[in-house]
């Protein structure tokens, strides 16, 4: 009797372990530190909705990545650093192989976990925000500020203005207003704009807007007096529609205003009403639902009523599409890592890091994904964790965003020089020995 129970128990246990191992081996866990409440909920719900929908698409249409199903869990951060750290710690050991990748979508949380990810061996991907000099992969092996950084963006915006004027030399003597959110995020623009001003001979007029930015009368009075040729809107949240409305009130042409990618979404223009017509903004992803990848999401995810968005009309909006970009990059990095570490296997964060570092989304691959023109072609290397540094410019026509340029390049040598200088200073302060990229495989 006793023997029998022991054997039975043992068998049951073995069975349990066996099945759990078998099922666990086919799942890749991704922790999502989302924010759906608080001042930035509009951006957060769109972005994480798009990201989740893309992962659902991979599971529904392809049955996962080479058979590995994606699983995820959301953790509400409220865009708060302490809550973000709690989410990071809570999720890092979840799933069979731990959290695959951490993408906080908050510069504050990025800084808070910057050193933790290296200890825990979890790659951190910060697309279009976070620490700019982390683009130097020799000093920051675990951090990937992909596609483009704030500095590249500032440079691309200046290049766009050069294009509009008919040549970079035409910028000489021009005056560019920089209306920035008075925070670490907004100040990120100063050093690079000063450098570019010195190089091209234009003048930068820096005008601070205190958080949250719903009061901008004195700033626009200043702009009206100085009459800059362009105004760069480096804003976030409620500051953007306020600026657009104030521009209309003071009679500053919206066509001469260029927003950054956190100022160029439907959430920024629709509240400004007709005043927003003509407003231009940069973006590393474009708006619109006329891309095969979005069509697939509609067919396989919303067709089966598995979509994450409560408001389906937001599918194809700027933030939603940005979430799809997060999804594409995450999925493709896992796919790349599976090529090296075994197809159809769940991978650890350390293995997926290799996938990010060797990610290569060329035109052919983007076409296969149905995302040609949706995001710029992307190639990451050991030294360069940023990639193309390109943005497209879109103009609000009163109802929707219209793409008005091709991918606009940034001044790569200048930006890269600043990144390396800043990263070297960090490495010195922290006593980090930069990796030798010729020895990486």
């Amino acid at each position: 009797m006793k023997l029998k129970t022991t054997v039975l128990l043992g068998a049951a246990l073995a069975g349990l372990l066996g099945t759990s191992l078998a099922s666990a081996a086919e799942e890749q866990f991704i922790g999502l530190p989302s924010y759906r409440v608080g001042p930035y909920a509009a951006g957060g719900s769109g972005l994480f909705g798009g990201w989740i929908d893309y992962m659902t698409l991979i599971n529904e249409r392809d049955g996962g990545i080479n058979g590995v199903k994606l699983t995820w869990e959301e953790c509400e951060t409220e865009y708060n650093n302490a809550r973000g750290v709690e989410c990071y710690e809570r999720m890092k050991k979840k799933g069979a192989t731990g959290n695959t990748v951490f993408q906080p979508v908050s510069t504050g949380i990025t800084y808070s976990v910057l050193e933790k990810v290296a200890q825990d061996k979890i790659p951190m991907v910060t697309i279009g925000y976070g620490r700019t000099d982390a683009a130097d992969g020799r000093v920051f092996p675990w951090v990937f500020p992909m596609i483009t950084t704030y500095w590249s963006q500032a440079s691309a915006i200046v290049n766009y203005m050069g294009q509009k004027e008919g040549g970079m030399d035409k910028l000489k003597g021009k005056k560019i207003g920089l209306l920035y959110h008075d925070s670490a995020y907004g100040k990120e623009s100063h050093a690079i704009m000063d450098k570019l001003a010195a190089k091209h001979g234009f003048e930068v007029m820096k005008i601070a807007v205190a958080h949250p930015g719903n009061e901008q009368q004195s700033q626009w009075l200043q702009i009206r007096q100085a009459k800059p040729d362009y105004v760069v809107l480096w804003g976030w949240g409620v500051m953007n529609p306020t600026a657009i409305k104030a521009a209309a009130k003071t009679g500053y042409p919206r066509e001469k205003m260029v927003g950054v990618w956190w100022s160029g979404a439907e959430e920024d223009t629709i509240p400004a009403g007709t005043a927003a017509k003509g407003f231009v903004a940069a973006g590393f992803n474009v708006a619109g639902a006329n891309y095969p990848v979005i069509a697939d999401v509609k067919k396989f995810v919303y067709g089966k009523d598995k979509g994450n968005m409560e408001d389906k009309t937001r599918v194809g909006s700027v933030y939603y599409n940005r979430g799809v970009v997060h999804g594409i990059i995450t999925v493709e990095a896992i796919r790349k890592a599976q090529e090296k570490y075994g197809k159809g296997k769940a991978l650890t964060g350390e293995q997926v890091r290799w996938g990010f570092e060797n990610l290569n989304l060329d035109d052919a691959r983007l076409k296969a994904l149905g995302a040609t023109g949706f995001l710029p072609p992307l190639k990451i290397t050991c030294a360069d964790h940023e990639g193309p540094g390109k943005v497209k410019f879109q103009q609000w026509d009163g109802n929707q965003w219209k793409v008005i340029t091709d991918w606009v390049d940034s001044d790569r040598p200048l930006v890269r020089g600043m990144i390396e200088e800043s990263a070297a200073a960090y490495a010195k302060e922290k006593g980090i020995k930069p990796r030798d990229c010729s020895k990486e495989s």
Partner: protein
Amino acid sequence: MLYREAGQFKATYAEDSQIFPIRQDKIGFWLLMLVFGAAVPLLANEYWLKAILIPVLIFSLAAIGLNILTGYAGQLSLGSAAFMAVGAFAAYNFILRIEGMPFLVALVLAGLTAALVGILFGLPSLRIKGFYLAVATLAAQFFIVWALVKFPWFSNNSSSGVVTAQDVTILGYTFATPEAKYVLTFLIVAFMALLAKNMVRSSTGRAWMAVRDMDVAAQVIGFRLMRTKLLAFAVSSFYCGVAGALYAYTYIGTVEPEGFNLDLSFKILFMIIIGGVGSIMGSFLGAAFIVLLPIFLDNLVPAIFGDSLGAGFVSNFQLIVFGGLIIFFLIVEPHGLARLWQIAKEKLRLWPFPH
């Protein structure tokens, strides 16, 4: 039954004025210290230490700081987070700029810097009271965060104003593991809480309470208002400053001025309101409540409702429950959790024969 005091006699004044005059309390206290000082670091996992226990301890310390000012000295303040920021950035700069600066000395210096700034912003308290003073401290909140962003010297010219805390090394030992950091935080917080408890029981604390209850009367019977109020500001800011330095060094590791915003100040204020205004123990209870409840709800709500509700609804629902619970507690017990404990204790002392 538990609290039967029969046979516990006090024969000296010293015995009568102890922090824990009842033997059961004393045993309970040492048991708690043993559990949190020894058992927890041995048993708790990394997530609990790093994400829950360390922040609870640090916020308790900040809440003690605010409680000294608001609960004991009666000066309403909305600048606690700013004083934490002063502490964090001061510690960073002391360690960065002075070769071989020991961590504990830097911690004390950070507290002193915060105390100095606190005195400066406490000056208006000599003229204005109540809500008007709260507005003056609000100025501290905005000014300090603005200054830390404005002058790059504070963040060693980092382009984004963010600083990364150096390693914590005391006598050649580096506190790197979560267990070590927890023990360090625990010891510092326990020591400072004991200090605060004694301070509020001494003549200093009595002076604060006299000023709180009626400052004109206090002045008439011979308390010097300026000294008392400014001392309260200094001590309070010292506690907040040390809490801020610990926040940077043993908890988050990387801090930016915006992290210490008005929201955090309000959170600390809620901690003392929920925990108990004018109670050291209440600071701990309030901090634990405010830090743990959202995390608890974040785990609980999806577990109950599963995927049937949208993620946006789940997030908002947590906030609704959180707010609802705070209102519930304030109605049921306006004096905070500490008062609830006190009532329970009084009942226990009489139980089971209440008459």
